[in-house]
């Protein structure tokens, strides 16, 4: 019974709840039990809020019993990446600097989750301040890939992807600055969507790079992603960059799932060299399925994508160096007071800031803060930040041009399957290359969806395909993603995750 509840998609669980076949308390408890059983191995969660989740679940059950009209996802539990501010729940962004910090306010998307009655199971692990592609840069230890515990679940949102892949939660929230939703989804066999920039409020997201960050759904099915996306999306007056227009009909697009006549562009620059053979073969097969279903497949070139990674690693660190300046020990978070000040005697505020930041930030955060500080410095601004912005404009133009010829673009989501823990930790450039295919969408603000395309023949690990659409045309992601998912499930004879090895069912210590 319990395992049955865990393997249900969010939509299917919602139907059971609506039909009265199960209760939210029962479903929530089942997921809490699963967390207790497997999270010692997976380490998807930094904080589990059993009490709060069960209280929300009981409230939804009570309201349902009284005949109240509820949101269609009411009572379906969810995990939230620890970069999202949750009132009363610790929010660390994976950093020692914020260990124990409890925000006094909710992010807008949390307000919407709470209002819709989704029990929040807890906060998921991530690379510190979302800087990384493996979750190894978390100050609280790495997460593990449920497909192979010696491998990373990707990053920065490895925790959310691993939680969903390990059936610890049917739904999760991630954030994607350069691929942090899509790349973890790709290497864990789950679905992840980065909405159009401005499509989901950023209010309450601890900012990494303000012009790139976007929150979105992490799920096991395309339909679940659409439902969650519709719930958290839409205009928010608290975010100036939020789009003041209704969210497109995403769930309808999934259910329609008709790709006849849809023009699909395969991006020449995102494939070939540097992409693992198994990733390429699964990608080619998936594109073949789309063509079989009546889509018009063509190859398109986006020549400036080759410069995306370089531009990204100037823009992101520049914005991050400024966004992370507020962590200075003056008002909240870690405070390290040195014995004496730099000038001797009592340490000054500046001494405390220095000591705290030195002790609080991990190596990757420091690397990017230094990079960004340098790129914005007078005399270097034009050559670095300025040039990167020009490249960004060129990448946007590449997208615009491509979308005059095709309705969506497709590429492998990540160049490789999940890599081993520690494999790239000392090689930042190799780590950065994981996001080579996902970064262009962030630079241009266009939406992207990643869904599993199969298992690579050489290692038996999940591979994935991403669909990219023009800004505000997020529905196209779901139309194409929904259709492809249906055909792949047919071919596989069931969800890909059914093929993942069983995790130890030994009860583990519940994370605090």
């Amino acid at each position, binding site marked *: 019974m319990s395992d049955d509840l865990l393997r249900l998609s969010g939509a299917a669980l919602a139907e059971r709840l609506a039909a009265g076949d199960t209760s939210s308390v029962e479903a929530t408890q089942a997921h809490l039990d699963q967390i207790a059983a497997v999270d010692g191995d997976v380490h998807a969660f930094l904080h589990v809020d059993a009490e709060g989740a069960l209280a929300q679940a009981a409230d939804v059950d009570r309201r349902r019993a009284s005949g109240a009209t509820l949101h269609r996802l009411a009572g379906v539990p969810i995990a939230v990446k620890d970069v999202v501010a949750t009132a009363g729940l610790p929010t660390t962004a994976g950093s020692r600097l914020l260990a124990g910090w409890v925000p006094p306010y909710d992010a807008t998307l949390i307000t919407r989750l709470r209002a819709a009655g989704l029990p929040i199971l807890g906060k998921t692990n991530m690379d510190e301040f979302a800087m990384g592609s493996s979750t190894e840069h978390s100050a609280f230890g790495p997460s593990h890939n449920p497909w192979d515990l010696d491998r990373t679940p990707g990053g920065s949102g490895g925790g959310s992807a691993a939680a969903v892949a390990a059936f610890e939660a049917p739904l999760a929230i991630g954030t994607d600055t350069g691929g942090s939703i899509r790349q973890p989804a790709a290497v864990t066999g789950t679905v992840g969507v980065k909405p159009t920039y401005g499509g989901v409020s950023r209010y309450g997201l601890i900012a990494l790079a303000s012009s790139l960050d976007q929150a979105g759904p992490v799920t096991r099915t395309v339909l679940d992603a659409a439902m969650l996306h519709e719930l958290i999306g839409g205009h928010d007056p608290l975010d*100036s960059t939020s789009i003041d227009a209704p969210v497109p009909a995403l769930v309808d697009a999934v259910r329609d799932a008709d790709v006849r006549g849809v023009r699909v562009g395969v991006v020449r620059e995102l494939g070939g060299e540097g992409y693992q053979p198994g990733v390429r073969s699964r990608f080619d097969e998936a594109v073949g399925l789309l063509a079989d279903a009546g889509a018009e497949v063509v190859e398109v070139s986006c020549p400036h994508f080759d410069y995306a990674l370089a531009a990204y690693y100037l823009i992101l660190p520049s914005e991050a160096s*400024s966004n992370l300046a507020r962590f*200075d020990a003056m008002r909240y978070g870690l405070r390290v007071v040195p014995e004496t000040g730099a000038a001797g005697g009592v340490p000054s505020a*500046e001494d405390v800031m220095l000591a705290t930041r030195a002790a609080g930030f991990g190596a990757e955060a420091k690397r990017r803060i230094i990079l960004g500080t340098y790129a914005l410095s007078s005399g270097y601004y034009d050559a670095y930040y300025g040039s990167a912005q020009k490249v960004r404009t060129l990448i946007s133009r590449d997208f615009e041009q491509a979308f005059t010829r095709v309705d969506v673009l497709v590429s492998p989501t990540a160049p490789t399957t999940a890599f081993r823990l520690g494999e790239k930790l000392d090689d930042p450039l190799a780590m950065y290359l994981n996001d080579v295919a996902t970064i262009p969408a962030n630079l241009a603000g266009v939406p992207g969806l990643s869904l599993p395309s199969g298992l690579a023949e050489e290692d038996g690990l999940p591979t994935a395909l991403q669909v990219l659409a023009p800004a505000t045309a997020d529905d196209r992601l779901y139309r194409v993603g929904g259709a492809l998912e249906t055909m792949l499930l047919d071919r596989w004879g069931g969800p890909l995750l059914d093929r993942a090895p069983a995790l130890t069912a030994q009860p583990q210590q519940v994370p605090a």
Partner: protein
Amino acid sequence: MISYDEALEHFEPVIGLEVHVELGTVSKMFCGCATTFGADPNSQVCPTCLGLPGSLPVMNGKAVESAIRIGLALGCDIAGWCRFARKNYFYPDMPKNFQTSQYDEPIAVEGSTEVVMPDGSTVRVDIERAHMEEDTGKSLHVGGATGRIHGASHSLVDYNRAGIPLVEIVTKPVIGPDSKAPEVARAYVAHLRELLLALGVSDVRMEQGSLRCDANVSLRPRSGGPQQPLGTRTETKNVNSLRSVERAVRHEICRQAEVLLAGGTITQETRHWHEDTGITTPGRSKEQAEDYRYFPEPDLVPVAPSTQWVEHLRQTLPEPPGLRRARLAGEWGFSELEMRDTVGAGALELVESTVASGAAPQAARKWWLSELSRRARAAGLELSELQVSPQQVAELQGLVDAGRVNDTLARQVLDGVLAGEGSPEQVVVARGLEVVSDDAALTEAVDQAIADHPDVAAKVREGKVAASGALIGAVMKQLRGQADAARVRELVLQRLS
């Protein structure tokens, strides 16, 4: 130090002024927090103005409107599209460790304004730019001798001020006033105050910091002629009264002249102004200046005021203070001196409202500039803070004009109004202050006085009219001042003729 005259003998001073104006908006620049001055520390804060992780700014439309109106009133071009930037530096009273400010894309550029000097002449000051930014919190350094950070044992930070909207108005170098530079600096700031008050965008109280001034001064040798480049400037920060602006500029001219005459050079630096001693001391030099790493603020969208909106704001600007003064002086028949005194006393609006309520201009001026100014001074209040409205002053003058109270009684009526006893009419009734205008009653009092002072009465009868004063005094005393002295005099002379 050398004298001002000696400094002027060798050098021509050039000044520039940067004025920060705190806008009087109800809420802050980027959040909904209140902006009330003097509230309990850290009682007007929220996640956004505290810079909590995840918080975001949203622009205050009213602040943008005020900035545009200031720009228009200073004759500036208003940008059709402009942005905010982040000015990055670490300081505990700055919650995000960057200030959201306009940098290379200000809302208003290239203006000019005519400053009226105390002698009535005008000086044109060119405006470089006016841009929007947010204020920082306020640090209170405890334990040191002077409230400065040096020697303090700890500091307290109040973030109520963090995020209050500011407009910074920057002049171009003011070349030409020469020896008058200190007076021009003062007159410019006074002019700006008047202009901002007329716009209603700020309460411009320098003592509360809602108008703060940085004064730039440089010197160039007389021998070099007018085509030579400007000298190295210093920027004296936070000169926060009109008098200090003038003093600080004058001091800095003398100080720089002394350095230069001794063969030294001026360091480009910021300087601190010391109100008590009247001197400036070095702050941060250009070499020590921080690299602010400005870049466009990605959390805000660009500001793109529509032409229609800007034109609407232009059409609805108040009359420029100079023109308005000239017009009112003409309408009221005030001399130049009377007008200047009225403006100087901060009574222009009050006199205008009093006249609008029916009082004669000269009468209105007298009330506000003499009796009411005296009372405001005694109470340590601004004229506008007195508990009497222009309408009440006009009503009081109406009572005088109708002969219902005389000057002495009018002052007593004013006492009542200021004490909160109601309108002048109500005070007259309640206190029984009306003059006795019943001739029968007056005649009775006059006869009584004649009877009481037969010797005086005899003198008057003999034609010594001047002696009647004693009789009038007696009548007034008997009626406790509540009589029209002129009418009493008429009656006395009539009875004794």
